[in-house]
């Protein structure tokens, strides 16, 4: 379990990093927290010839709330640690789902190294944070030497450990719109052990209208397909409903519609479909309660 030889580069600023990524293209991998990449390299499942360590790049560790003309946006730079996000008051206020999902990622020492952006860019279909980003209607800010673009989370994840990033491009931040009033969220998962990747997890947000009906919902699943996926049939079933137990049960029953989970030794595809239904129901119940301002823990 020793990595193949590689060149280690430690750029001092973003331009230098982008130059290096442009030069080495697909042969290069970005190193942020190293909690996924280093393991893959040790197992020789990844053997990049160049590793670009962005930890010395100034400014990437910013966690900020921007208030433009529209609603507030939470922005997490590429080296913001998962533990920082999890404990941030801004995250708790504007995107509590990110903190709740983040607390399920591995163990605190791992989260003190691992980054939110790193987990998103790694695109493990079982991981919590990509699903949370999807449920939060977040986006990915990607930059290369030729410029910057914003990719909606819905378009970012393309397959297992695959994204729509181009060679030479890196994720500099993720952005999440601040949740509004009467919006509740919840993250629930089943993992084999505390801190393991979930067999299946559900991130959900529910927004209720003035009359209490469900104005909108986003339900994202991890461990239920080749990438983090929206449970759109469940979303459709719940949207416009009264948010009562019947509607939740109907939505949960449809949570696995269209899913193609990848079975492994922790759970078959069928079991993951089963969990998707059970956990969607649980996540929605909690999110709906929270949307109504009721403090209910999962």
């Amino acid at each position: 379990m020793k990595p193949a030889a590689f060149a280690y580069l430690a750029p001092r600023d973003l331009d230098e990093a982008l130059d290096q990524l442009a030069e080495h293209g697909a042969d290069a991998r970005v190193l942020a927290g190293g909690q996924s990449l280093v393991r893959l390299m040790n197992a020789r499942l990844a053997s990049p010839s160049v590793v670009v360590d962005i930890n010395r790049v100034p400014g990437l560790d910013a966690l900020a709330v921007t208030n433009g003309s529209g609603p507030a946006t939470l922005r997490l730079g590429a080296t913001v640690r998962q533990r920082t996000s999890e404990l941030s008051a801004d995250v708790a206020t504007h995107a509590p789902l990110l903190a709740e999902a983040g607390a399920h990622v591995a163990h605190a020492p791992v989260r003190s190294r691992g980054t939110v952006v790193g987990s998103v860019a790694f695109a493990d279909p079982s991981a919590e944070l990509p699903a949370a980003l999807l449920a939060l209607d977040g986006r990915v800010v990607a930059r290369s030497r030729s410029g910057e673009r914003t990719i909606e989370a819905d378009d970012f994840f393309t397959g297992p450990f695959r994204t729509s990033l181009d060679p030479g491009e890196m994720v500099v931040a993720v952005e999440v719109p601040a949740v509004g009033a009467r919006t509740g969220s919840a993250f629930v998962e089943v993992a084999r052990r505390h801190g393991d990747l979930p067999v299946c997890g559900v991130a959900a947000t529910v927004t209720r209208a003035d009359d209490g009906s469900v104005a909108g919902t986003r339900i994202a699943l991890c461990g239920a397909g080749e990438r983090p996926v929206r449970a759109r049939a469940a979303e459709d079933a719940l949207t416009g409903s009264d948010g009562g137990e019947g509607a939740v049960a109907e939505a949960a029953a449809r949570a696995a519609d269209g899913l193609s989970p990848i079975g492994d030794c922790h759970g078959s595809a069928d079991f993951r479909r089963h969990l998707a239904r059970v956990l969607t129901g649980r996540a929605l119940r909690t999110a709906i309660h929270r949307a109504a301002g009721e403090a209910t823990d999962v």
Partner: protein
Amino acid sequence: MSTVEDRPTTATTGSPREGERRWVGRSVPRKEDPKLLAGRATFVGDVTLPGMLHGAVLRSPHAHARIVSIDTSAAEAIPGVAAVLTGAQAAELVNPMPAFCAEPVPQTAVAIERVRYPGEAVAIVAATDRYIAEDACAAIRVEYEVLPAVVDPEAAMAPDATRIHETLDSNVAFHRTLDFGDVEGDLARAHTVVRTRARWHRMGAQPMETAGAVASWDPFDKSMTVYSNSNFHNFLPWAFAGMLGVSTNRLRMIPCAVGGSFGSKHFITKVLAIAGALSKATGRPVQYLEDRVDNIAANDNVGCDRIYDAELALAEDGEMLGLTLRIIDDYGAYFQFAHGQHGNAMAQPTGPYRISSLRYDVSCVLTNKVQQGFFRGAGADPGNFVLERLVDKAAEQLGIDRAEIRRRNFIRPDQFPFKTPPGNVYDSGNYAAVLDKALELAGIDDWRAEQERLRAEGRYLGIGLATCQERTGYNASEWWFLYDNPPLPATSTPESVKMDVDAMGGVRVEVGCPLWGNSPETVVSQVVAEEFGIDPADVSVTYADSTTGAMSAGPGGSRLTIMLSGATRGAARTIRDKMIRIAAHAMEMDPADVECVDGTFRAKGAPGTSMSMADIGMRAHLFFHDTPEDESSGLVAVHTYDHPYSTPPSADRKDMGAFYPMVSHACHIPIVEVDPETGVVTLRAYYAVNDCGTVMNPTLVEGQIVGGIVQGIGAALMEEYRYGEDGALDTPTFREYLVPSMHEVPEIVVEHLETPSPFTEYGVKGAGEGGRLVAPTAIASAVDDALKPLGVWVDELPMTPERVVGMVTDAREGRP
């Protein structure tokens, strides 16, 4: 069923009266801890020799394949690579690995022509560092012709199944049926016969430190020095010498501190052969330490992998009459230790119960998986699982309380020593008292009330119960008595120490066993302290290499504390007696009037005149003329303690003899909560009452029990080797093969009952495996209890979320 008529002739004169002991029985701080906790113990990975190279292994991706060709040229061309060896090349340097089986199942450390399990070594490399060695492995080109993989042991038994070894007529390497007592009569007489088809799955020890060796071949005097974490360097060093192609008197094996074993490192012949072959090929020292992937794929410690068809015959009142066990055991691709795991299981197949007949039918089947070795429990673990499952099922079917049916059938205290149907003898016990104490410790009524309360909320709390044996202190006959014509019918499992008192009165003990994760230094020091009345902190303990003549079977079968107590006490008494004679001579007294108290030798009852350890030490070392005439100089004793009570098997194998007679007992009561929708099982609390005879050191025993329970939690809930239909290992890393972390372990409350063994020094019994021997079946019982409203019955582990949901679904839909 009978009691033992002949008391053991080797039984000791008896232990001191209760209350007289000062150090045996105390929680003396573990002497091994400081160096381990500070990271200053020397493990095999810490050994660095001048010019040392590092080994790595290329492993087969296939479960079963013919090796068509191997091209090592690109690997050899990498700068820093010193040697690349195929199986055929390695076979010119080292011999096949020793095996205990009588059947022709040869096994080499590096495969020749054919690979038989995923992860089997195909080529080995030595290079200037491990990185380069792994680069070289990646550069080796192997062409395979993939053969059909034999994965399912029952399918493997078919006459037309693909054969794993052409040297055998069938994949059933061994089959035997043995009846003890009137099996047919008991079945016919039974009011109820409870049946189960149960599965005990593959697990491994997963020690924190993997197996490893540093081998250094000296081509001039044809000698080899080996540092390793093996246990058998002072038990079977000649077997290692034969494998390494070194004469027995030119092999020096040096034990290193071991980072956990749990039975996993007795032999570790693969790493020894690999390091040895590479050192011979290069003329330089070579270190080969398995990494985690190596260890999981190709270790020597995968435990039993059994399918049971079991029947328990009972009378109407719940009296257990007879037990039949039909077992298919998937041994994997080789037969390294033969059926020693079944010899082991024969020590206690009928558990703590008065069951008078037993049928034991075993088929040892070969498949394309890594071969079985030994792992904590060593063959008795599945037996406990199945027997306790049957007892719970009998209680359910007969409408008798789980505790009550056990109480009715326990061997009574007045029936010891108790001879079991297969012949092994249980020394002592008070099983009902252990059960009662456990029920009280757990506060069982409070948990029943909590269970009621939660059921009203739709939650499922379960209370487990298991009462199991822990046979401790094995004798070698268990390895071979299932054969009529065993290849090596050894009868010894010795343990020796060499003790000396120096001229200044310092006590030093050299033990033959390694530091394998248990506590030989502490135990030896406590015994020395007990015998001389000195502080255990003042005793120095060192480890003998294989050139000193030390004899030691080492830790294994929960024997070490028993055996070290005997060896150390024997040596201490020899030296103490000599010191008494010297002191008596100096003080002009009769030796019978001199006693040793608090490290001083004085007239009995007249503490005025005395000599210190140093006074006598100096006299013994330098003043020959001032000692009694027949005393030689010095204070040295070597004491070998052989098995305290063993008898040979009968020629017709109707009686396997006494071979594992120090029998501890435990009752475990785990409390679980089960989420039937997600299948998640959470342990809420855990209670264990253990009786391992006289407790040598409560802290050490608690550590053994808690650690074993944690491994039992792993067995019950998560640990599992899984193979795909093509034979691929689906659990090659710790992301797939799961072991419990602290988050999965509740607070474990342990209490003791002490029923001394009449066979051993101080009355100690072993305690090394009890936790794991009881916990899996206890937790299964708890899950059953939790899901009783749903009609679930657990007969297969681990209880993964998917399996639990499957059981709930099957029960709801009325499937068996």
